[in-house]
């Protein structure tokens, strides 16, 4: 077992038996779950640039000394691949993602172990003990308390965040991060630099990226999207809920927003354009157009079939809205009403006709108040002619009253 921080400046001897240099860094390959050391970076007094010695040329590897199996000058230099990273320069002291604890942690030290003749990265030490050890004050922590023992996080539970210099293949290095809940990814991204944010978003697939962006703070959403290629940005917008996509587009410069809308599928773009016409703080501004409308002529059985067909699209199916041929809102019934109704009963026979609804221009606070007052899951939004335009769901209404996650999240300095 080794600590990476202790390996720095280890004496390196070659076949001549003389010390030819000191260890500057280790190259590790991220292709494996526990990355093996693939080369040593040896600092020699003769050369300006350090030499990368392939692992195959290492005879013995100890914390006190390293022996090479050939003459240093004759050893062929190792060529770094894009799967390899410098352990001390690019991993030690940097921040990485603890996918188990779902947060950013600082690498205080890296633990390596000998496995079948290879040296592999096993875990990250994040304890204060590691700091004291590196400062040469380990005795302090032993004296202070025994609880401050090393705190390791297994390498299989960490994910690197790309640095500015690193050349490594992002897709490979970020795959674990993509498995987290989008809200957690957004939380972690909040702590990252703009460059890193861009890289992380780039590595996620469209759907996860869309969900993650929805969880980010509005100001960060716009910047994140603006930094992307327009083609991909429009794909991600299509995956987002239309109301959220509209909010995001409203925060972008007008030209960029127009360009993205043009790149989107006709249907999605049309919905968003309609939503964009309403002020952001009105019912029209926070509503979604993904609701279930049932024709007034339908029976209960037909309604259920319709839901089966449409369900994946709609934001909520607990309320079903009955509309006539011109799209006038006639009534509403719940999923429960529908299920208990006889299959051949007309929906008009069991719907509620005095629907609680709001005009598209109603202030969002009033919408939230109504939803709270009548304990609704969603409220329909109509225009002046009583045409159904969309619905505001309770979760969007709550955002108005209770600050959303990003608002609760204190800025770094106060959080």
């Amino acid at each position, binding site marked *: 077992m080794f600590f990476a921080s202790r390996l720095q400046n280890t004496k390196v001897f070659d076949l001549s038996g003389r010390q030819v240099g000191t260890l500057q860094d280790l190259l590790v390959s991220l292709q494996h779950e526990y990355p093996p050391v693939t080369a040593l970076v040896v600092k020699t007094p003769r050369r300006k640039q350090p030499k990368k010695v392939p692992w195959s040329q290492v005879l013995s590897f100890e914390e006190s000394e390293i022996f090479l199996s050939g003459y240093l000058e004759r050893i062929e230099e190792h060529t770094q691949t894009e799967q390899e990273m410098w352990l001390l320069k690019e991993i030690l002291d940097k921040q990485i993602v603890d996918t188990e604890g779902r947060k950013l942690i600082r690498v205080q030290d890296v633990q390596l172990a000998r496995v079948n003749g290879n040296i592999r990265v096993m875990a990250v030490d994040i304890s*204060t003990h590691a700091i004291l050890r590196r*400062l040469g004050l380990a005795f302090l922590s032993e004296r202070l308390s025994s609880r401050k023992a090393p705190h390791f996080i297994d390498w299989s539970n960490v994910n690197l965040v790309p640095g*500015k210099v690193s050349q490594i293949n992002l897709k490979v290095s970020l795959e674990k991060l993509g498995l987290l809940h989008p809200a957690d990814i957004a939380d972690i991204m909040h702590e990252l630099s703009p460059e890193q944010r861009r890289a992380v978003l780039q590595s996620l697939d469209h759907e996860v990226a869309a969900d993650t962006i929805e969880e980010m703070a509005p100001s960060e959403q716009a910047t994140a999207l603006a930094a992307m290629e327009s083609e991909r940005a429009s794909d991600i917008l299509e995956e987002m809920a239309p109301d959220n996509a509209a909010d995001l587009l409203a925060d972008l410069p007008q030209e960029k927003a127009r360009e993205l809308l043009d790149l989107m599928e006709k249907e999605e773009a049309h919905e968003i354009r309609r939503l964009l016409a309403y002020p952001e703080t009105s019912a029209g501004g926070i509503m979604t157009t993904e609701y279930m409308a049932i024709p007034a002529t339908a029976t209960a059985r037909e309604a259920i079939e319709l839901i089966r067909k449409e369900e994946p699209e709609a934001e909520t199916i607990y309320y079903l809205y009955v509309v006539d041929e011109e799209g006038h809102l006639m009534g509403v019934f719940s999923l429960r009403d529908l299920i208990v109704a006889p299959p051949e009963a007309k929906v008009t026979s069991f719907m509620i006709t005095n629907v609680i609804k709001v005009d598209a221009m109603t202030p969002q606070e009033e919408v939230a108040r109504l939803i709270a007052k009548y304990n609704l899951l969603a409220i329909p939004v109509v225009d002046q002619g009583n045409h159904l335009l969309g619905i505001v769901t309770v979760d969007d209404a709550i955002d108005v009253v209770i600050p959303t996650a990003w608002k609760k999240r204190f800025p770094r300095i106060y959080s």
Partner: protein
Amino acid sequence: MHRHRRLTRQRILLLLALIGPGIITASVDNDAGGIATYSLAGAHYGYSLLWTLIPITVALIVIQEMAARMGAVTGKGLADLIRENFGIRATFYLMLALFLTNLANTMAEFAGWAAAMEIFGVSRYLSLPLGALFVWWLVVKGTYQAVEKVFLVASGIYFTYVVSAYLCRPSWGTVLTRIVVPEIHWNGPYIMMLIGMVGTTIAPWMQFYLQSAVVEKGIKARHYRASRWDVILGCFVTDLVAMCIIVACAGTLYKHQIRIEDARDAALALVPLAGRYAGTLFAIGLANASLFAASILPLSTAYYICEGMGWEGGVSKSFREAPQFFWIYTLLIVLGAGTILFPQVPLVPIMYLSQVMNGILLPFVLLFMLRLINNPEIMGEHTNSPAYNVVAWSISLALILLTLLLLLFPWLT
């Protein structure tokens, strides 16, 4: 009403949205130590130190601009960058020094607060616990939006010094001439005062604070132009306030050859000379400045240290999750306010001590900053230009030289 119309308004609002970090940093800059130093400069040397404000402003702008640029480009705090690029050893000792320095600074702030409240007849046994409680409450119970608003309003209170200066009826013509025409007196106390002014205006913790605040605002490299104006404006405001304090004291106390020990003396001495309002406004300014800085210092210090050392930090965490953060934060407040409670504790030497410690730390912080900002791996195309580097290095070297003088002076004279 239409969203499209809002878009254009948003562009105008962009500049306003970026305002904040620079102005707040600049205001906290005129803290208890700053006000005391400027008061002394005005009372003992009249207008003869006014000219230093122009070079000080230039230096301040250059240094703060670098901090803000690093924040915008990297999206990381200064402590974070230092840890990632200079390793644990350098970070540890720098953070230890920052802790001690800011402990001294916090003590100075609470000393200023206690002194200001004593002018209004409030005992320090009452004002200190209340002040400490307010600081704690603001952070633990307040939301950031509220906190930022409080701070921005507090920045406005500095205007009291402008009114104070006006009430003292100085001859503005002379003031203007004295600002532009430099004069140097080659005697120990004068040079000492000059160094004190530089030291109190350009403090190490400000660079950490500003950079984090810029990161926090989410200012990106491409919006950076607008943000730069915030920094420059902030620096001008800082030194405008400084000028008003000097003018207020010079036009009255210096004219009547009244010796003062600290800012409290200045406020009291202003009453018979410039009227009750001038003195009261002066005291309000001091109370506000002290409490303002005392709110920001302990918290931000705890934050940078945790950032650099890789400990969990933040008021939204529990004590169990982030013990180091809460210990540092609590220690700073308790020691900072607690020390001042003892009546034997001399306030003037504490102010001086905090300035000396700032002075010792500043060169190191500047050297780290210059190395970071010139590293293309970190800053990309936003490194300093060669010309800018000449200016930045000259300023840094001048500051380091002045600091050495400050430290050596007690032995030289």
